[in-house]
């Protein structure tokens, strides 16, 4: 039910955006996001036709690198 999918923004149209996953595009609503935080190329988590949060891809990579290092050292 709380299923949500990360999708990439390919077009911003004010209150809506077009997002893409594996070549499939769909329009989503941005009412739950704050105005200035999104740009084309960002990933957002999409639930029930709404973007509910921005996905931090830099954090995703860094966390994995950190985990790798921790597992090597300890």
């Amino acid at each position, binding site marked *: *039910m*709380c*299923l*949500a999918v*990360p999708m990439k923004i390919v077009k911003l149209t004010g209150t809506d955006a077009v997002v893409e996953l594996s070549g499939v595009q769909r329009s989503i*609503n941005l*009412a*739950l*996001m*704050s105005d200035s935080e999104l740009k084309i190329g960002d990933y957002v*988590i999409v*639930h*029930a*036709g*709404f973007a*509910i*949060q921005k*996905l*931090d*891809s830099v*954090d*995703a990579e860094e*966390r*994995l690198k950190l*985990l*790798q290092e921790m*597992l090597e050292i*300890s």
Partner: protein
Amino acid sequence: MDEYRNPELGQKLLGKIEETLRGFPVKISIMEVCGTHTMSIARAGIGRLLAERVRLLSGPGCPVCVTPNDYMDRAVAWARCKDIIITTFGDMMKVPGSTSSLYREKVSGAQIAIVYSPLEAIGIAEAYPSKKIIFLAIGFETTAPTIAATIKCAREKNLKNFFIHCGHKLVPPAMRTLVNDPELQIDGFICPGHVSTIIGSRPYEFIAREYHIPCVVAGFEPLDILESVWMIVNQISRGNHAIVEIQYTRAVKPEGNPNALSLMNEVFAPVDSIWRGLGTIPESGMTIRESNADFDAVKKIPVAVEETKEHPACICGMILRGVRLPVDCPLFRTTCNPENPIGPCMVSSEGTCAAYYKYEKG
């Protein structure tokens, strides 16, 4: 995200968990309260990988499963009215009420439309002005803000034929009920990922502070879950104060999504709510505030609802509390299966029984 499925790193994490727990006299019990975690754990077989040291419990993480029968019974009663179109997420269709389901009503001619987004229900209301459109609003904090935005949209469009059957529930109050349950021993919580994108990590702090139970907000890939278990295990082994940590940092901030939260709180107010298996939990549900009461289906469209009945042998309630497993149910795999579900935990694709049926072949 494929990197988060790296088997080599997974193996190393398993080794660390094993190493940290070596010498512990008893298995530790970790509960997740999110249907998507239930499915991820079952799919990756994480329960079996950890089985020697950790008991992974599934709590009431599926909104469809915890919705009591009378919610469905009311939806069925409305579906039988000629001037009403029911709109719903697909997972609600086969959920059994006391004597029927939406699926059965649709076969008998009821007007029921499955939508992916609640905004599609607004489109249906605009297209059929002579009908009353009721949207079945089920879901946790992930979904409630989308419904709040939908109600605002209906207000802007001045729609008079659009209504919400509000069944939203809040996760942290249910977690309090679980930790107070004398039948349950919970040593750590894997906190829900998508719920936390909205509410953040702070609403779980009372669990760490008052009950000294470590909490980790987790992502959904196998490495996310294993790392979260490792973080919980580390907290337990250090024996310091329990805290709330975020493993799913790429999506969850401590403060959550303030925009979504303020919209949710503007439209809904907390209310006592009945959970299947857990009973009435104070302030664990949401009701539409008076300012938007004209969209509240229960207030605006009275209907006679049949007397609520539960299947006497179904143990979904105990499964939702984590005190029984699906295999303990006399109906599991025999009379109750995905083709013919008796209880909601088998109907919903995120239900514990459905996850067991699909992935746990023993």
